[in-house]
């Protein structure tokens, strides 16, 4: 009788072990499966709405952008850029601005003014208002911006 009891306890213990093993393996498989599915789905990029998707913010403690990208840029220093043709510590860029239409409505041709700076005459292809891009050389340490860049024509977006 005692032997039977021991046998039952032993069997039960074995069954418990099997159950635990199965449970653990199942959990592991589900977890791995879900993670792979999430990864194959580009981490939700396709499914989520844009405003949710953009929450994929990155925590950073590393460096920012590189020093390249400026026309005639030099990571060693900007002194190699001749002042006659380059603006030092600046990079070629386009500035996005709103057309300040004001009193020029009836002309069809919009004189784009930014405060006291007249930027360009632009013919708009929408009825009123719009966004244009104008060439700029904004500050950017370690870069050089070719002066001719500023003479490029503004463009309507």
């Amino acid at each position, binding site marked *: 009788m005692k032997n039977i009891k021991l046998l039952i306890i032993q069997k039960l213990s074995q069954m418990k*072990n099997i159950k*635990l*093993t199965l*449970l*653990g*393996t199942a*959990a*592991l498989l*589900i*977890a*791995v499966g*879900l*993670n792979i599915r*999430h990864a194959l789905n580009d981490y939700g990029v*396709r499914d989520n709405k*844009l*405003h*949710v998707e*953009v*929450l994929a*913010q*990155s925590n*950073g*403690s590393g460096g*920012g*952008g*590189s020093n*390249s*990208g400026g026309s005639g840029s030099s990571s060693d220093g900007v002194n190699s850029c001749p002042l006659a043709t380059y603006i030092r*510590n600046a*990079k*070629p*860029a*386009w*500035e*996005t*601005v*709103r057309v*300040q*239409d*004001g*009193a020029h*409505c*009836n002309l069809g041709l919009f004189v784009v003014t*930014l*405060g*006291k*700076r007249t930027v360009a005459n632009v013919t708009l292809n*929408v*009825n*009123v*208002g719009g*966004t244009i*891009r104008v060439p*700029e050389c*904004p*500050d*950017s*340490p370690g870069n050089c911006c070719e002066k001719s860049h500023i003479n490029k024509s503004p463009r309507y*977006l």
Partner: protein
Amino acid sequence: MKVQKIIIILGIMLLWLGCDKKQQIKDEELIYIDIRLLQKKNLILEDSVKYRFLKLETTNKCLIRQIMKIDFDENKMFISDRNNKVFVFDNNGTFLHDVGGIGSGPDEQLSITDFVLDKKNKQIQIFDMLKSTIYMYTYLGELISRKKVDVNIFRDFSSVDITSDNQLVLTMYNNIFATEYNYRMVNTEKYTNYRNCIPYIAIGEVCEVYRIAKTAKSGEILYLSALASDTIYKYDDREKSILPAIVFNGKYKPLTKEDVVDKTFEIGSDVEFIARMKKRSIGIRELYATKKYLHFVFEMDAEIYRCFWNLERQTGSYYRYVCESTIANFFSYVIGATDDAFVCAIPAYEAIRHNWDENQDAKSVIDNTLEDDNPIIAFYYFD
């Protein structure tokens, strides 16, 4: 037994890691602006909005080329000029003093990238990207301190905002060599911890700088927009993060990643061509906010509209720009906002061309204005 326990623990950990809490934004937490529920009006500000015109004093010490930013505190106007100057005027337009200055001395700036008002500590912070230095001044223009910052963090940004808990939010250039994100949040306790926020949907090969207001402050709340997006974000000081707050449901659906995948852009804003071609929204722009109203611009049927959203009542209206010579037209010069008014800077040469006979208050201000004077500041009060 040990192996089983390890397997179970591993499984639970993997399950937990598989759930990214940050991705879970409940729809009910968002406010939706449905264009079908907005009131359409023909003429902007047709509801006889109150306005006040103010002439900024013009002297050799305060010649303004182009106002880049305007902010208000303690009955003063703080104005940054494209010519690397920061001027302080009182609320009658009288010039008080400037802040900082261009030069090669240790307390001078090489460039003034932007400034912010730390209204809690009553400080003006001037950002010099070329010297990687932040200068702190009193409202009277006295230098308090300067802080050297990491050039790799404080580079390639066009403007700076400060949050209610003193975090800095930099509006970043759009360029593959700059950042791939609309914003960078910097912790002001260390100035070395930062987080890039809201990835650009399109990144240009050439750098793009945004002078169109992408951010707006309504009281203590900082609202932010993103390139080609119909979502307005909000800085959450509990989460210390930028979260979606308002979604504009216009006529067109927003662009998705699939619309722009495998496409290259000269500048980021070229994504608007794709949007127009595919009948998608080009996103909302020009955020300005009073305590009560949020203003933004959107495009529909090749026309541009302004939306004024009442943040308290959660109602709003939108207006199409109409080519009539009215005071309201000068709203296109909007550059900022106070707690209760939207602020426009009208170039003097534009203001003097207009016939002000029907508005004697404005006429009295503009009658004494010369073509080359500093801009006229117009305050448009809603309600």
